[in-house]
């Protein structure tokens, strides 16, 4: 999977590395901004409710 993605990134190796870093940054951003807040709100709560 990761190898497949890396092979399909355009350009020479140094550009592929840049692309890969950008992709990682984008994924981490999406996780921190949207996925984890949702994950946390769905599975963790602090109030008492019926």
């Amino acid at each position, binding site marked *: 999977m990761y190898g497949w993605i890396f092979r399909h990134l355009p350009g020479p190796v140094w550009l592929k590395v840049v692309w890969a870093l950008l992709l990682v940054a984008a994924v981490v951003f999406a996780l921190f901004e949207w996925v984890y807040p949702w994950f946390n*709100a769905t599975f963790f709560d602090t109030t008492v*409710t019926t």
Partner: protein
Amino acid sequence: MERSRPKPPRKKSSPGRVLVGVFGELLITLGLFLMLFIVWQLWWTSFQLEGSVRSEINQFQENFPPSQTATAETQFTDIQRTDDPPPVGDIPENEIFGLLHVPRWNYRVMPIAQGTNHYVLDNGWAGHYPETQQAGEIGNFAIAAHRRTYMNNFRRIDTLEDGDPIVVETAEAYLVYKVTGREIVDPSAVRVVLPVPNEPGVEPTKRIMTMTTCHPEFGNSERFIVWSEMQYWVSKSDGIPIVLKDEPAGGGHDGT
């Protein structure tokens, strides 16, 4: 420059190998997902909020300062009143109406807002259960906050001991509560926020505060409850209660 070593031809991988490879990478991905989640939960959510919570505390204290005439030495007072404190009034949902000071937690200070929804709690504030009484009223002033994540506000709830002072600062007064007890309950135990905790239908006579948060510290299966009872209040025109004498400006930090 030229490399003469010939590259070995790529092995043609069998479908089984591909499947195992993909499965392995999925496991790695899951591991990374959970690892990053821990980083996000324990560190990032608080890091993100530190500045904004600090400025909300400062804002409240600027808007509602204690006695202007006092000097640094004379601003602390032992004038304690036990009549009805100034009412907080009706607060719109999501609005900050007070600050919680906890000397036991290295003088931690946090804003208290109306409501226990995610907007309030995920801003690093304590939230007031709107169906319970207001701060200083006879009955039960119940608040919730996160144990972990979003400032870790009630992280140290298990360290509160009987007799510890907890101060609710409102626009006009400091309400000084003293811890009286604790209980670990199921998340469905709404009885803990009744006007007289755990006693449905009983007419309240005391001014109780209930703090609720997650338990265990990193889990969600139970709730840690701490009760306190208001002992007295201090008017802001008289100064700051002496129990907050050692509080650093803007509140202390417990290093989380």
